C-alpha cells in the first residue's frame, strides 16, 4: 500500500506546513501586539527627607565707606577711605517680629590706609527655641563729594557666600573699580576671581589665591587684574571661609566726578533673572542709542553674561512698575563667555522692572545714569533671588528711597510693611505685576505676607542715583532634600 503511505506523508507535510504557518502567525502577532500596546508602568518614587537646617547665627557685612585710589601719589595702588557711610540695620525674630539688637563688630580694613571708619559686621544670634533664623537687614549710604568722587552710593549689608557674581564696573579710562572682599567667618578664605569682559575671559594671574584672613577686608583694584575692560563680569569663588564681595565703581568725566556706586552681587546663573527695579532718570529714544564705538555710557543698558559654553537666546521684558509707560520686549543672542551690553530703549522717565528669560543660564545687571544740575551719578541695578516669606528691609538715609517689588508668583499678594516705628502699610501686588512703595529713610521695615517676591530699593534725587537689591539669606540655610539610600 505505498500509495496510502505516500498520501499520508504528503498529508503530514501539509499539516505540518499549516501548523508552522499558524505558529509563525502567532509569533508575529504576539510580538506585533506587544509593540502596539501601551503597558501600564509601576514606578516607585525614591524616598527622601526634607531637612530644614537648624537656624544658625546670621551675619551681614556692610562694605564700609567709599574708597579711592592714589590720593597719595606715592602709593598709586593703595586705597584710602573717603568720608564715612551711615548704616541702618535691624533684626527681628522671624516668628513674632520681636526686635533683636544685632551685635555690631568691625571688620579690619587692612588695605585702607586711612581707616577712620572700618566696615561693620552685624551678628544676630539665634533666639533660643527658634525654628527659623531671625530676619536681619542692614544697608549703608554715603554721599561723596570730593574732587574725584561725587555721588550717592548705597549698599546692602550682605551675607558672606562662597560663590558670587558681580555684574558691573569698568576699568576703562576715567573709571575706577575696586573689589571689596570681606571675610566675616573664622576660617581663612582663599578667593579666586574670574573676570570676563567684552572680549571674553581676562587672563588675570593675580586673581587666584587671594587670601582673606578671618575678620579682614581686602581691597583689590580691578584694573590690576583686568585693565581696560569696559564691561567686566566677576565671578568670585572662595574656598575655606566665605566672603562678602562688592565692587565699588567711580568715574570721572573730564575733571568733574561722574558718580560712584557700590555694586552688590547679582543673582547666580539661571535661566530666569529678574531685576525688580530700574530707574530711568532721562527719557531715551531709539535714536540716541548707538552701539559699538559711539556707545553712550549714560544710556540705560543691561549687561548680560553667559557663563556656559553655548550661546543663549535672551528675551528681555521691560515693564513699567507703575503702569505709566508701555513695556518693551526684545530678544537678543548672547555669545557665551563675552560680557554683552544691551541698551534699553526707548524708555521714558520712570521705574521699570526687567525680566530676562534665557535658554541658557545667564547673569545680568542693569545700569542707568543721571545728569542734572545737582551733578552726575549712575547706579547699577542687580538681579536678585526671590524672597520667600517675610523679610526685613533696612533703609539707609538718602533721597526718596523707594521699594520695588515684583510678584512673579501665580497668586495676588497682599503685603504688610511694618516700620520699626509708625503705622504699617498695606500693599497689594497682583500676580505677575510689580509695585513701588516709597519708604522713609533711616527705618527698618518688616515685609510680611509675601510668598515669592523680588525686591530692590533705589534712591534718586537731584544728580544722585543708587540702589541695592534685597536677597534672601544664602542657599546654605535653605531646606535640602536628603536621600539615605
Amino acid at each position, binding site marked *: 500500500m505505498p500509495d496510502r503511505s505516500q498520501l499520508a506523508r504528503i498529508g503530514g507535510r501539509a499539516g505540518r506546513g499549516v501548523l508552522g504557518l499558524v505558529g509563525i502567525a502567532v509569533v508575529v502577532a504576539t510580538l506585533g501586539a*506587544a509593540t502596539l500596546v501601551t503597558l501600564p508602568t509601576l514606578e516607585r518614587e525614591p524616598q527622601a527627607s526634607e531637612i530644614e537646617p537648624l537656624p544658625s547665627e546670621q551675619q551681614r557685612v556692610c562694605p564700609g565707606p567709599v574708597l579711592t585710589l592714589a590720593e597719595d601719589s606715592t602709593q598709586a595702588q593703595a586705597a584710602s577711605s573717603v568720608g564715612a557711610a551711615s548704616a541702618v540695620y535691624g533684626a527681628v525674630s522671624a516668628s513674632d517680629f520681636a526686635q533683636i539688637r544685632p551685635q555690631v563688630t568691625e571688620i579690619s580694613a587692612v588695605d585702607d590706609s586711612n581707616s577712620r571708619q572700618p566696615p561693620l559686621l552685624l551678628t544676630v544670634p539665634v533666639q533660643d527655641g527658634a525654628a527659623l533664623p531671625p530676619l536681619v537687614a542692614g544697608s549703608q549710604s554715603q554721599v561723596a563729594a570730593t574732587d574725584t568722587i561725587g555721588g550717592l552710593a548705597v549698599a546692602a549689608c550682605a551675607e558672606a557666600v562662597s560663590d558670587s557674581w558681580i555684574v558691573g564696573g569698568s576699568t576703562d579710562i576715567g573709571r575706577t573699580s575696586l573689589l571689596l572682599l570681606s571675610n566675616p567667618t573664622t576660617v581663612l578664605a582663599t578667593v579666586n576671581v574670574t573676570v570676563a569682559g567684552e572680549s571674553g575671559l581676562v587672563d588675570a594671574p593675580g586673581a587666584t589665591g587671594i587670601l582673606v584672613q578671618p575678620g579682614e577686608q581686602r581691597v583689590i583694584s580691578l584694573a590690576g587684574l583686568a585693565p581696560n575692560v569696559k564691561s567686566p563680569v566677576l565671578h568670585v569663588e572662595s574656598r575655606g571661609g566665605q566672603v562678602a564681595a562688592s565692587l565699588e565703581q567711580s568715574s570721572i568725566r573730564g575733571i568733574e566726578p561722574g558718580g560712584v556706586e557700590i555694586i552688590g552681587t547679582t543673582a547666580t546663573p539661571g535661566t530666569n533673572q529678574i531685576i525688580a527695579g530700574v530707574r530711568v532718570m532721562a527719557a531715551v529714544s531709539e535714536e540716541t542709542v548707538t552701539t559699538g564705538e559711539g556707545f553712550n555710557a549714560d544710556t540705560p543698558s543691561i549687561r548680560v553674561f553667559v557663563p556656559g559654553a553655548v550661546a543663549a537666546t535672551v528675551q528681555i521684558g521691560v515693564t513699567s512698575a507703575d503702569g505709566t509707560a508701555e513695556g518693551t520686549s526684545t530678544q537678543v543672542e548672547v555669545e557665551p563667555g563675552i560680557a554683552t551690553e544691551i541698551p534699553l530703549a526707548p524708555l521714558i522717565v520712570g521705574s521699570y522692572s526687567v525680566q530676562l528669560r534665557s535658554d541658557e543660564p545667564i547673569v545680568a545687571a542693569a545700569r542707568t545714569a543721571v545728569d542734572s544740575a545737582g551733578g552726575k551719578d549712575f547706579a547699577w541695578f542687580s538681579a536678585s533671588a526671590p524672597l520667600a516669606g517675610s523679610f526685613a528691609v533696612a533703609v539707609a538715609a538718602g533721597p526718596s528711597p523707594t521699594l520695588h517689588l515684583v510678584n512673579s508668583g501665580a497668586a495676588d499678594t497682599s503685603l504688610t510693611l511694618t516700620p520699626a516705628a509708625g503705622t504699617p502699610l498695606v500693599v497689594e501686588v497682583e500676580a505677575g505685576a510689580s509695585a513701588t512703595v516709597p519708604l522713609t529713610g533711616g527705618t527698618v521695615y518688616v515685609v510680611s505676607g509675601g510668598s515669592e517676591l523680588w525686591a530692590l530699593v533705589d534712591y534718586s534725587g537731584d544728580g544722585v542715583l543708587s540702589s541695592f537689591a534685597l536677597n534672601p539669606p544664602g542657599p546654605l*540655610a535653605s531646606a535640602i*532634600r536628603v536621600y*539615605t539610600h
Partner: protein
Amino acid sequence: MQPRVTAILVARNGAKHLERTLKALSLQTRKPDIVITVDCGSSDATAAMLAAFGPTQFIAADADLNFGQAIAAAVRVTTPPTHDRELLWLLAQDSAPEPNALEALVDALEIAPSVAVAGPKVMEWIAGEYIHNFGESMTPTGATVTLVESELDQGQHDGLSDVLAVSAGGMLVRHTVWEQLGGFDPALPVVDDSLDFCVRVRLAGYRVSVVPAARVASAGDGVAGPNQSSRGRLRRRRVRAERSAQLHRRLVYAPAGALIFHWLSLLPLAFVRSIGQLLRKEPGAIVGEFSAAFGAAFNGMRVGNARRSFAKTRTLGWDAISTLRVPSAEVRRRHSLKREASLFGLHGERPEIRFFSGGGAWTMLAAAVTGIIMMVPLLGADTLTGGGLLPLSPSLPELWASVGYGWRDLGLGFVGAADPFAAVLVVLGGVAFWSPSFALVLVYALAFPLAAVGAWMAATRLTDRGSLRALAAALWVLAPTFLIALADGRPAAILVHLLLPWLFFAWFAAARTWSASASAALLFAAVVACAPSLAPALLVVWGLSVFVAGRRVMRFIGIPLPALALALPLIADQGLRGSWLNLVADPGLPVPSAHAPTLQLLLGLPGTDGWAGVLDRFGVVGLDPQLFVPILLAPLAVLALLALLLPGARLASGAWLVALLGFGTALAANQLVLAAIGAEPVRVWTGSGLSLYWLGLVGALVIGLRSLHRFASTPGVVAALTLAVVVLPLVASLHLGTAAVREGTGQTQPAFVAAEAEIDPRVGTLQLVPQADGGLLATVERGVGATLNQQSTLDSTDQTLSAREKALAELAGNLASRSGLETSAELAEFGIRFIVLQPAGESVDAAETALRTETALDGNAALAPVGDTEFGRLWQFGETDATASTPLPARAGGVFGLVTLLIALAVVGSAVLLSLPIGAGREAVRQANRDAIRRAARADAKQKTKRARRSKVISDLDADLDVPLGTDLEADLAIDRETGVGTGLQSDDGFADDAAVDDALAQAVEDDNAR
C-alpha cells in the same frame, strides 16, 4: 518411613505466572504428598486457578500477609511433625520448579540428616539459562550478599553445596526445624527472611545446602523475596526493605553490650548514607534510609522478640558460621568490579560531544580573540570599576558573611536577608580566593570564550554539525544584550548570559539523569539569583516540563528547589513588607537605565545600539540606524521563523516559546521601577529577559538550519555577519569611550580613608553625592568602602525610612547647610570619621548642591579639610577616638538566620552532591544487570516472531545483543540506557520529538518488566 513433602504455594495476584508454576508443580517427578495453596486476597483469577489445581488444602488469606506469615498460616493447618523426615517446600506463585527439582531437593535432605534446609538454583523466569540467585551469605559486617546472581549458567557453580543461606522461594525445610525455630521472623516481611532463618538454622546446629541439580525459575514478583522490578516506586520500596532488614538483623545479632552503640549509630549512619545515596544518584532512597533507621530505632518490641527467639534456639557461637561468610577481600573485589562498570558510563559520555574534533576548541579560541580585541583598554587591569561593578570583600570569610539572613553591612547596616546573588558572588569569589575582586576581572577576561563554549555545548543538544554549533556560539557571543551588559558593567546580567546556555544544556538532559537534573537545579538557582526577573519565565518553562515529563516528573520537580532555598529569607523579608514585586528587583549595585522602546527590545537591544552615537560622532548623515539595524537583523529573525515550517518544528516551537517568555520578561521589566539610588529611580534591567529571548531565537535558528542540511551555510553566515555589523559599535564601546566600565584602582574610598581603615576596619565615612534634583544622597560606608556582595535589594527597594536613617538625613542636611546644629556629637554617634563629597554630575542643581555642601563643610569648625581626591573632596572629623567606632554586630541573624542557612546548605549541598557526575551506584549496576538479561531474553523472543516489524531504533538494541551477554560491557550498555549516565542525543525532554521513539521503547520495556 518415607519422607513426606508438604508443598506450600503462596500467591497474590499472580495469575500471570501461576499457570506455569502450577503446571511445573504437577509435572514433578517426585510429587509432593500434600499441596497447600494460600491465596493472599488476590483480586484476579489467582484464587480460581489455585482452587482448580486441586490442592490438598486451599487457604484464602488476607492480602496483607507476607510470605512468612502465609507459610505459617499453611503450616498451622498441617498436622504437627512427628519425625524429621516431614518436609516443607516453600513456593511462591512465580517459583516454577523444573520437573526433577523436588526430587533433587528431597535427595539432598535424605542423604545428609544434618542438612535442615536445601535450596534450589533459582533461575531467571524468561532467560532460563541465567542464574537469578544461588545461595546467600553475609559479609563480616552483616550485609547481605547473593553468592551468584545474573550469571549465565554453564555449570560453573555446580560444586557449591554448603552455604550460609538460601532464598525463600523453592526452599525445602524440615518441618521439625521449622517448628523449632518458629519460622520466619515476622519483623522481616520481605527481605532477608530466609537469610535470617537460615542463620538461625545454622546456629541451631544444622546445615544449609544448595542443590544445583534442583532448578526453580523465579520472576521476582515480590511474593517470596523482594520485587525485582526497576520501576522507581517498587525499587525504592525494595531498597528501603533491604535497609530495614539489615538494621533489624544488626540489632538482633548484636551482643547485648554493643546494642546501645548500634542503636545510637542508626540516625548518624542514615545521614552519612544519604550523602552516599545522593552521590549514587539515588535521591529517592533517602526517605527509605531514614524511615528504615527510625523503624529500627523505635520498634523495640520487634527487636526484643526476635532477640529472645534467636537466643532460645541458638546452640552454637558465631564462629561456627564465620567460614561461610563472604570474606572482606571478596566483598571489595565485587565492589570494585561494579564501580568500574558504573564509571564506564561516565567516560562513555565524551565521544558524543566531540568538543575538540567538532570545532568547539576553535570556536572558543575565536571568541577569545574577539574578546581580547574588545577588552584591549582593560588589559592588565587588576580591578574594574564603573557601572554596577564594585570590589568584592577582600577575604573569603567576609564574603561568606554576606550570605544568608543576618547583618547587612550596607550604609547604616540592618538585619535582613541577603540577596541570593551574594551566594553566587561567594562561589565566584572563591574561584579567585587569593583576591576575590579579581574574579570579576576574570569574568570579563573570559566572558567571550565562556559564552562561546556555553552556547556551543548547548547547541550539541540540538545538532551534530560542528558548523551549526559554531554559528550558535557566534550568535550567542555577539548578542547585543551581552555586549551592553559588558559595557555597562552589569556583572549579574553578564553571568546570566554565561549561565543560560548551560542551564539549557543541563535541563535538556534532566529527564534522563539525576546528575543533569541537579545541575539544572543549581544553574536555575544561579540564574534566578543573578536576574530574579527571569524567575516567572523559567517557572513557566519548568511547569511545562513537569507537565510533559510523565514518568520522569521527579527529575524536574526539584529544579526550582535550590533557588527557593536560597531566596527563602528574602521572600520572608519582602513578604513581611508586603511588597512581593520587589523580589524581582535586580541584585547588586543599582544601575539606572532608561525606558527602552518596545521596538528596540524586539531587536534584542536593552539599551541603544550605539550606531546613532557612532554616526553622530563621525558626522555621517543620511543613514538612519532606526532603519538599517532592523534590516540587518532581519535574516536572523526570518531563519528563526522558518524553523517553524521545517522538520523539527515542534522543537522550534518550544524554542519560540522560550523566546516569547524572554521577550515578555523584558517587556515587563521595562515597566517596573522598583529600586532607587538617591533621587534616581532604577528600572529592572531588561537585558536579562532579552538574554532568554536571544536563547530562544538562536535555538530556533539552529533547529531551522539543521533541517536545511547543506543549504544551511549561506543563510547562517549572512545572519552572523549582519549581526556582527549591528553590534560593531558595542564591541568597540570600550575603545570609543562609550562604555561605563573602566580599569579601577581597587579602591572606592580615598587613599587617606583606606589607610585609616587599615587601623580601624570599621571607620565610618559619610559619602555625600549631590543629586540631579538638587538633593543630596548621604550614606555611611564602613572601612574600605562598599562591596558588591553587601549590596541588598532590601535596601534599594526600601520605601520607608528608619529612625536611624532619618537621624542620618538630619545630620547630613545640617552638615550641608549653614546650621546651628552641634554636629560633632552626632558624627561621633554614627562613628563617622571622614566625609567625602563626590563631584556633581552635569546637572545645574547638583552643582549648586555640591557648592553649598562644600561651603558648609568648609565652614564647619569641627571638620578639617584634607583636600581633593579622585573620589571627591575629603574632610576629616578629628574629635572622635577609636573607641567610638561601631563594631560589627555578632550573630545578628539569630535562629531564623541559622535555620534558613542550614536549609539552604542542605538543599544546595544535596544538589551539588547529586550533580557530581561520578557514575551510578552499585545497586543501579546490579539492577541494570538484571534488566539487561531480561531485555535480552525478551528481544530474543521477539526476534523470532516479529522480525518484520522491527524499527531502526530496535536494531540499535540488536547491536547491543551481539555483544556477548553477561560481560561487563553488556552491563555498561544497560546502565547507559537505564540510568542515563552515558548520554546520547536522544532525550525524552518535553521538546525532543526525535527522542519520542526511543522513549516509547523504553516505556515498553518498563511495562514489560512490570508485567
